[in-house]
């Protein structure tokens, strides 16, 4: 488990991370979302011990991380711009990483290279940006660390490759309990992989919730009420986050389990109703609007 307790970091006059407390559980995929400049990279650089927080503390499995070899041994960090040695080939990187990470899996490394179609003896500098990201992910996976921390790693990958990597991540999670932590400015990229989402805005955590909880507890209902009195009744009795009306058609976003909502609407006098699945995007819009933010400006710009 990675714990951040009241962590702050300031660059000159700007608080890049401001009093953040967060917990990233083992065995789940933690998604860190936020716009450019929200503090994602800074937070990850502190989590990985690259930077020292100005205040607060960061623990990885109860151990402080900054300049602590034992704690750092638990993760592999893939930054937004991965570094490879000048003129190095994938083989050179494997040789180097094998000296740094005691459990580095060399055989799977070459297997992955083949699967991804990356030549082992070709200079990495000749690889495309996407290929370099693939290689960075392979390096990370084969380091066999408990945590894999990815900063904007999936940006620039094509959808097929993204799906492939997601599936490999899932395998590693199943087989050896890998805990990926993925930061992105694009919510849609995290939607189908993350179990838990932390939303960063201007250095602070806007919310941190389990994705399933969020999905199960918010429903979107489209309906046509028989009378306006029925609509008023629903407005008063339900925990409504949002309610729009176009003509006779109401679109309601309400908090509550799907079964409960279905049962409630069954008892109302409606011409038509249906409960629709919510996208992560819609959930976020609803959740953040409740706390007074216009999420469209924060994430979906």
């Amino acid at each position, binding site marked *: 488990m990675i714990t951040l307790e009241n962590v702050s970091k300031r660059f000159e006059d700007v608080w890049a991370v401001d009093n953040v407390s967060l917990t990233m559980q083992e065995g789940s995929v933690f998604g860190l979302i936020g716009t450019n400049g929200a503090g994602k990279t800074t937070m990850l650089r502190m989590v990985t011990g690259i930077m020292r927080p100005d205040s607060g503390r960061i623990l990885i499995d109860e151990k402080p991380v900054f*300049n602590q070899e034992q704690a750092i041994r638990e993760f592999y*960090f893939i930054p937004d711009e991965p*570094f490879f040695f000048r003129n190095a080939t994938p083989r050179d990187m494997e040789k180097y990483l094998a000296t740094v990470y005691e459990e580095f899996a060399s055989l799977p490394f070459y297997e992955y290279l083949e699967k991804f179609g990356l030549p082992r003896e070709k200079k990495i500098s000749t690889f495309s940006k996407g290929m370099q990201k693939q290689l960075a992910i392979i390096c990370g996976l084969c380091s066999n660390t408990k945590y894999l921390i990815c900063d904007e790693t999936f940006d620039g990958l094509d959808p097929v490759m993204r799906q492939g990597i997601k599936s490999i991540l899932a395998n590693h999670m199943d087989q050896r309990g890998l805990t990926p932590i993925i930061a992105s400015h694009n919510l849609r990229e995290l939607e189908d992989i993350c179990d838990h989402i932390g939303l960063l805005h201007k250095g602070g955590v806007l919310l941190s919730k389990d994705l399933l909880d969020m999905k199960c507890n918010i429903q979107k209902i489209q309906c046509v009420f028989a009378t306006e009195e029925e609509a008023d009744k629903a407005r008063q009795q339900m925990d409504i986050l949002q309610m729009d009306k176009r003509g006779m058609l109401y679109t309601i976003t309400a908090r509550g389990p799907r079964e409960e909502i279905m049962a409630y609407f069954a008892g109302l006098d409606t011409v038509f109703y249906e409960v629709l699945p919510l996208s992560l995007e819609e959930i976020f819009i609803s959740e953040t609007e409740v706390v007074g933010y216009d999420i469209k400006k924060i994430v979906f710009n």
Partner: protein
Amino acid sequence: MTSRKLFLTDCRENFKRRNWVFWLQFLAYFVSFPGALILGLNNVQRGYAYDPTQMMRRLDSFTKQVLNLNLWISALIVGLAVLVGIQGFSWLHDKKQVNFYHSQPVSRGRRFLVIWFNGIAGFLVAYLINLVLGLGVASSYGCLSAEVLAQIPQAILGHLLLFLSIYHVAIVAVMLTGYTLVSLMGTVVLLAYEVGLRAIINEYAQQFFYTYSSWESENILNPFFSPLILFFRYQVNRYNGPYSRLHYSYSESMFTMAGLVLLYGILGWLLYKHRASESHGKSISFSKVKEPLRVLLLLVMGTLGGLFVYSVSGSSEVLGIAGAIFVTIIGHGVIQLIYEVDFKAIRKNLPGLGISVLLVTAFFVFFRWDLMGYDDKIPDKDKVESLALVLEDRYWDGRRVLPDGTEVSIDNYLYTELKLKDVDLVYQLLDNRISYEGYGSGQNNNVSGMEVVFRLKNGKTRYRVLYIDKDDNLEVLNEIFHSEEYQKVTSQVMEDDFVDNFRIFQAEYDNGRMNYALPAEQVRALVEAYVKDVQNADFSELYYGIPIGRLTIGGEGIQNPKYVNEWRVAIYPGFDHTCALLRQEGILPQAVCDEDYLASIRSVSLYYYEDTGSTQITGPEAVEMAREIVKKRILLVKEDSGLTREDYEEDTALAGFYPVEEVRLKEVLDSSYLQEMDSVDQYRYETGEEVYEVIVEQYTGQPSSTGGEAYADTKTDYGEGYYSDHYFLQADQVPEFLKQMGVFPE
């Protein structure tokens, strides 16, 4: 994997990343050791094939030169140490690499240690392998002597300390900065700043303090924090012997270097430890350093600019201060540009600029108007252990030879060896010092500047130039002059065992034009007579009197034949013992003119200055200017020379033309003395004192050269048999016939 094994693995991996630096070093040392030896020794072998002895000497000398601490290798080491230091740690300037390395399970301390160790190991391996190869080459040429081998450990230690110190300075620069280019600039600043500031303070003091001695400038090369200057100071002064002002022994120099290695090593480590990872891309990685550094840099830039403008503007204080402020503002802009890499940033941080401007202006004002009263103060008498005095216009010989045969400047020797312990006596003289204005006016030629060395009880040494009126202080000067310590240090001939320490192979007396060889067996007696005469002499005679001749003694050390020198001392009319011996040898009474010399003379010119009243003579520069206007010539030609006034039609300075008998010319020359006899009177002559310059034109009919050649100060050969001799004639010695002729204006 054990920790030890892992360390070596880390080293190997690190080496892979930077092996080009190693090979570059290897190549450089290969060229400098075996390469240079093969080429050089081969060259010597071919060039001296005709003389095997000479060849072996040269081979040996060249090998010693290459395999010792030499300037070329040292300069190479400096450059490579900077490269190794910056290259090793420049990853800290790259965000991608910082992310990569700092997120790996290798502690920061270990990473530092691996890179640091690899840098040193790379140097040592490249250096030592090539040194061994060099020894092999020397051996194959048969010039690997025990002497060469003996100097090797010294060279290795010296070069290692040089490498380590510069390497650590470069590491400190990398840690303090966030760009490689700025690191390079930082290295230069760290190595040169202190020396630069010292040089500026020295220049200001020289410019504005009239009692400031140029000997204080040695402090420029006495930095506390620049290993580069310390090492090269040692290198340069190694050749100058123990009486070099900046002499430092090998052990002293190496000990200091080792101290700096430690200092910069610890500093580099601490900075690395506390350097924030996010410092990459910033010019200065520690924000607290930025402002003090800016002020320090602007202080040097502004004060230098101020001094430059002050000098080129004809010493205008207003322009000097304006120049200092202007350069400070420009410097501020440049530093802002470097700090923020943004042209618009040059207008920022105006309070910092204001502080710098104030500081630079205060610096200029402080020196220009001597606000600390430097010129008014000399060290307290109670704090002085001993003193040395070096009078500007001293009479003694300017050279000394040390027991190892090294020739030493008398200045260096005096500054080290002259220790006048009677502080009260010397302070009687110093307390009568006068201001510089009295010295520069040209009104009083008895005022003389003298260098004074104050050796303080706390071990420090201070140098001053102080001005005294010799006429007013003759008694004290005489007493100082007669002190044993003064006489023995100022002249080697005065030393007790002088005659016993040398095999004299030459002794000669001359009056500037005519030489008389003396028998070697008379030298001891002559020296003893001379020592007695000097001990009895009055200072004023030595200073004001004109020597009748000089005694030149050539000798070599009995114990060390390298110990060779030629001593030349002046003989004054009052030197009774010496003169008696010279009379006994038939040398005195002497004649300046013998018959042949007299027969060859065609004319005698007497030059004097005519005061036109149009120019106020206030100093040497003004005199130089005035000379063009008022210098006049009286020409006495031998009656039978055939010269007529028409021959000198174009000489506008000619004030009188007088054909005279040969005997009259002899009278003039017998009253004159050759220029070589006394340098003091050259100054008197230039300032228009009662001294005339006398040029004798000769025709011998025996051309000895193609012309234009000067023999010392006295004789010039114009070719085709024409020569000239240079004399002076004091006003009170002017022959009666000239006075009667009224050739000089009243």
